[in-house]
């Protein structure tokens, strides 16, 4: 369904939290890149699971356990189709993007990356796609190489290609920058890495909520995303991995469910995906994520993509026309994120002032300190959009920015 002025109110009515008043004003929620809101359909699904379907999975033969197992595994199939993965066993449920990346670092990195090897990252990465690789590099004596970016916040593709050599063993790259909104040409970059036989992990935390993801078309080895950024619950996310790699990898955590047999002498690990899902998983959250994917599919990710782009263009035009305001991140291909600075006003004061008008934005370094350093700022203010936002809300943001400027003039 196309999202436009005629149906946006109906769509917003799906989200109970959007009726909230903050500081006595209607909530204007523009912090969707941090976490999105949950529609009633997902809330209802979670309540239904918890009220009538809950038990531990993969364990007992009783009715509830079989039902919960079926629902949990169906959620996995929903994620499979959402990413267009070939098989559902290529989907590992994780706590979120961060845990998915850590899983790859432990399971793949520790097994296949050794002293002197090089791991390529980009200057746009979130800390979640930097720190695990730094930990691995320290442990193994491997080296991190960083793809630089230009003043627009676009990666320099020539420099990217020049980083590859026979020591390059891994590429960990964000699909969309959380701090600047840059959409990286990941398909082209994956193809180049493959020419050098280098596997690729894509951090899809910011891409999955807004654009159609096709891991077979991208041909990446790993793709990670978080449920709570696409209208699902917190505590759930997924890692896609090519089956032949997941099979070769070391387990991440040890425990129940990830084993076939255990003696004190030896443990035989389970097959994928169970091998990577030790212990009781967040069953409710996984089923909630499945319901969120169903909800988004009814609207259509392509329609969401088109509408959010329109919002971003509208916001960019309005904010860039304001004297004394600078937009950080002006890449040609951008998604859903508007990072900005107001002359002479610290982002935290901007955030506090906007909050008094009910407007929720993120202020800070957005867990991307290297990006902040590149732009010589300690922090930015960031408005990030979802398909339930409106032009009127962006007008309120603009009015709020003007109020900040008047206060601090």
């Amino acid at each position, binding site marked *: 369904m196309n999202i436009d002025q005629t149906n946006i109110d109906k769509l917003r009515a799906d989200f109970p939290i959007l009726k909230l008043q903050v*500081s*006595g*004003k209607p909530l204007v929620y523009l912090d969707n890149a941090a976490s999105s809101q949950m529609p009633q359909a997902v809330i209802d699904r979670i309540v239904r699971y918890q009220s009538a379907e809950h038990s531990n999975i993969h364990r007992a033969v009783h009715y509830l356990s079989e039902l919960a197992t079926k629902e949990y595994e169906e959620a996995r199939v929903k994620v499979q189709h959402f990413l267009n993965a070939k098989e559902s066993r290529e989907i590992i449920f994780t706590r979120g993007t961060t845990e998915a990346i850590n899983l790859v670092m432990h399971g793949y990195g520790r097994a296949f990356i050794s002293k002197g090897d090089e791991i390529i990252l980009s200057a746009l990465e979130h800390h979640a796609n930097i720190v695990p690789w730094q930990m691995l590099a320290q442990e193994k004596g491997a080296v991190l190489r960083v793809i630089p970016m230009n003043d627009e916040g676009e990666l320099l593709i020539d420099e990217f290609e020049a980083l590859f050599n026979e020591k390059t063993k891994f590429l960990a790259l964000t699909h969309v920058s959380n701090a600047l909104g840059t959409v990286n040409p990941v398909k082209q970059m994956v193809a180049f890495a493959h020419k050098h036989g280098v596997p690729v992990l894509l951090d899809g935390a910011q891409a999955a909520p807004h654009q159609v993801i096709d891991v077979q078309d991208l041909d990446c080895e790993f793709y990670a995303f978080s449920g709570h950024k696409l209208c699902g619950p917190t505590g759930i996310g997924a890692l896609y991995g090519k089956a032949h790699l997941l099979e070769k990898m070391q387990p991440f955590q040890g425990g129940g469910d990830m084993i076939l047999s255990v003696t004190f002498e030896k443990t035989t690990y389970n097959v994928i995906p169970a091998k990577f899902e030790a212990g009781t998983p967040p069953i409710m959250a996984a089923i909630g994520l499945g319901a969120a994917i169903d909800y988004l599919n009814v609207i259509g990710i392509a329609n969401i993509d088109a509408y959010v782009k329109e919002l971003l263009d509208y916001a960019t035009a309005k904010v860039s026309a304001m004297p004394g305001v600078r937009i950080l991140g002006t890449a040609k291909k951008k998604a859903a994120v508007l990072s900005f600075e107001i002359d002479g*006003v*610290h*982002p*935290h*004061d901007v955030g*506090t*002032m906007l909050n*008094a008008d009910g407007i929720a934005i993120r*202020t*800070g*370094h957005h867990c991307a300190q290297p990006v*902040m350093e590149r732009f010589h700022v*300690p*922090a930015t203010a960031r408005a990030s959009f979802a398909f339930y936002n409106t032009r009127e809300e962006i007008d309120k943001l603009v009015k709020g920015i003007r109020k900040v400027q008047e*206060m*601090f003039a």
Partner: protein
Amino acid sequence: MSDMRQLYQEVILDHNRKPRNWGAIPGANHHAEGHNPLCGDHIKLSVNVQDDKIETIAFEGHGCAICKASASMMTGAVKGKTVQEAETMVEEFRSMATGKLDPECQANHLGKLKVFAGVKDLPSRVKCAILPWHTLHAALNLVEGAEAATSTEGEADPVPGTGIGEDPASAEK
């Protein structure tokens, strides 16, 4: 707090625009740096203590209006005070910012610093106001010539018993 004029009072905006005692003091005998990694607030403090008295004090760095104004007004307020008097003010300011001291009803030495009482309603901004004071505490408790780094973020709270950093859920309320 929906009336932003209660927080951003003219005196705070003025100190933010024109911070007093800005810079570094050559040859100062006490130094400390304060840093809130999450906000990027960063304060460098130099203090000259003679005969147990704060003779001169100056700060530099970058931060939000609350942090800068707090640092600027702090330097004015503690200059000429004894170390013990300054420490009492650190205690009182911290208590006020976390809502444990009502400067209108309870005895204190905060004077004009009362303008910061409003931050107690903004848990995420309490640490901005307190950072300069923690930094002062760190500077005063250092042996001459040593450098201290302090933070009001997370668990790195350098002031024992402040509540901040010890129990993030109940602190900063």
